[in-house]
């Protein structure tokens, strides 16, 4: 994660506060749909590549209806790719059995499964990012809590989110002052690191104390109360059922293969 990475959270936050039809869909509906999407995608057999392509409709549709810049999301997906790439890259090395024939070339099972891994990665990561960009942290946490997440964790997520900007700001300032006092931006020596991060920790502890006293001054008694929660509407249920039907169809039948066969038959 780069140093400027935390400011990305701000951008996602901005996107989450837009007001589009997708943003208005209840967070629970979107959470459930995304969960089903991920399960559907990951349950496809490991050598399927074409069968995964219809699933791209879900993130694409939400992306454009939710007014999310596609280039921004694509960049984030690329940044997150290394681990999956690194492990997936071994597949073509270990699995060399021919699994498909394309004209003069024979494709090994390893390459198919590698391509499948890449597609799955793009799909699942894309869906998760679109979910957050279309919902925003507050609605997401409220939805999660309504779906059964323990309140302690929901509150923890919101507090973390709230103080992320403040503490990251502080950390960036400390890092900059360390850079200015040394020969330039380079990783710190261990002792300096210990002192810097230690000071950051102390400031964080102090901040927590201040926040607690402020909460107490406003009547905090240990119990967290939250506001009225939105109710599910017909459109939310329609959203879930519609997408569920599509995922089921795309999972049961190889839609891409069917389209291809149709075209080939038409051509021949």
């Amino acid at each position, binding site marked *: 994660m780069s140093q400027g990475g935390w400011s990305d959270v701000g951008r996602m936050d901005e996107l989450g506060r837009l007001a589009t039809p997708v943003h208005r869909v209840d967070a629970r509906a979107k959470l459930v749909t995304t969960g089903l999407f991920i399960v559907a995608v990951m349950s496809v057999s490991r050598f399927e590549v074409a069968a995964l392509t219809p699933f*791209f409709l879900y993130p694409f549709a939400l992306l454009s209806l939710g007014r999310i810049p596609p280039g921004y999301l694509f960049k984030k997906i690329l940044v997150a790719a290394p681990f999956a790439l690194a492990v997936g890259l071994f597949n073509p090395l270990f699995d060399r059995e021919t699994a498909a*024939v*394309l004209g003069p070339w024979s494709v090994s099972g390893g390459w198919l499964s590698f391509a499948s891994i890449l597609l799955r990665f793009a799909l699942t990561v894309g869906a998760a990012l679109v979910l957050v960009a279309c919902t925003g942290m507050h609605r997401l946490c409220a939805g999660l809590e309504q779906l059964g997440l323990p309140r*302690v964790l929901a*509150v923890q997520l919101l507090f973390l989110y709230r103080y992320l900007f403040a*503490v990251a700001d502080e950390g960036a300032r400390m890092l900059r002052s360390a850079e200015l006092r040394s020969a330039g931006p380079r990783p710190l020596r261990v002792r300096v690191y*210990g002192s810097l991060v*230690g000071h950051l920790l102390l400031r964080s502890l102090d901040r927590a104390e201040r926040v607690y006293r402020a909460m107490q001054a406003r009547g*905090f008694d240990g119990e967290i109360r939250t506001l009225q929660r939105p109710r599910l509407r017909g459109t939310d249920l329609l959203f879930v059922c519609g997408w569920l039907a599509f995922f089921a169809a795309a999972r049961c039948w190889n*839609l891409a293969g069917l389209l291809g066969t149709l075209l080939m038959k038409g051509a021949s």
Partner: protein
Amino acid sequence: MHMADALISPAVGGTMWAVTGGLVAACARKMKTSMKDTLVPMMGVLGAFVFTAQMINFSIPGTGSSGHLGGGLLLAALLGPYAAFLVMASVLTVQALFFADGGLLALGCNIFNLGFFPAFVAYPLIFRPLAGHAPSRARLGCASLAAAVAALQLGAFSVVLETQSSGLSDLPFRAFVLLMQPVHLAIGIVEGLATAAVVAFVARARPDALFGPHACPAPDAPRSLRFVLTALLLAAALFGGALSWLASPHPDGLEWSLARAAGTAEPAAPASAVHRDLAALQARTAVLPDYGFKSAGPAAEETEASAAPWPAVSAGTSVSGLVGGLLTLGVAALIGLALKKRRTAA
């Protein structure tokens, strides 16, 4: 070490989600009874701290590369294991949601690998006993190092097990282990160094913060060992169950259970199918003890030979699949564009 969704099967992901969910619920319940008010903002701010600290690098002496703090162990030292686990869970959730660092299906795995081992194994069973009361700087350093290395080795091994049981990667078990463990040994040493540096600083500057009044009391070693064993046993049971009933893609296994449920007793065919499939099932579920993912035993080979010819190499299928795939991608993109145009026009 954050796992991506692309390498986890729904069965494994779902199982780990169940395990992590159970742990989160247990921690939440424990915190409700014994939590102090101050812990609420403290957990939030320290979560933000860990997040920030993970972005600050230090140079590792002698190698020229840099490392950073993971945070689980430090959190456990400051907050106690239950709160630390919840804070790590929240940090990993935000990382998965906002930075695509680890997938949503794999989030259960990641929280378990990066939260459970530092908070419930390394901290109470290694760090606390080694550090003792009012430890010297050297002792703190040793305790941090040992605990961090242990936590990371266990976490890395979990990653290997989870990836192997998902079956999406062709990497053989031995190769994967030999790749992961040494790398994470180095990472563990780095984490130990970083944690030691910060803990030493805090111990000097504000000793009451460590193992202090803010922390939920950590259970003593025998009790926490029991907790760990229970959690691991639960994970193993769920894992085995999920693998044998959910993960088998062979239609034969499904046919067998369907035949069993229907109760029809056809003499010859299902009998041999039952024997064949039981053997296949056993060969599948016995994979872990044998460490033989890739070396197909005689039973498995027999199954593959008698089952439908796999892979079904057919030129027609492949080409239409490719054409259809590219076209579908294009159609999906066009639909997306069309929706966008409609929206801007409206």
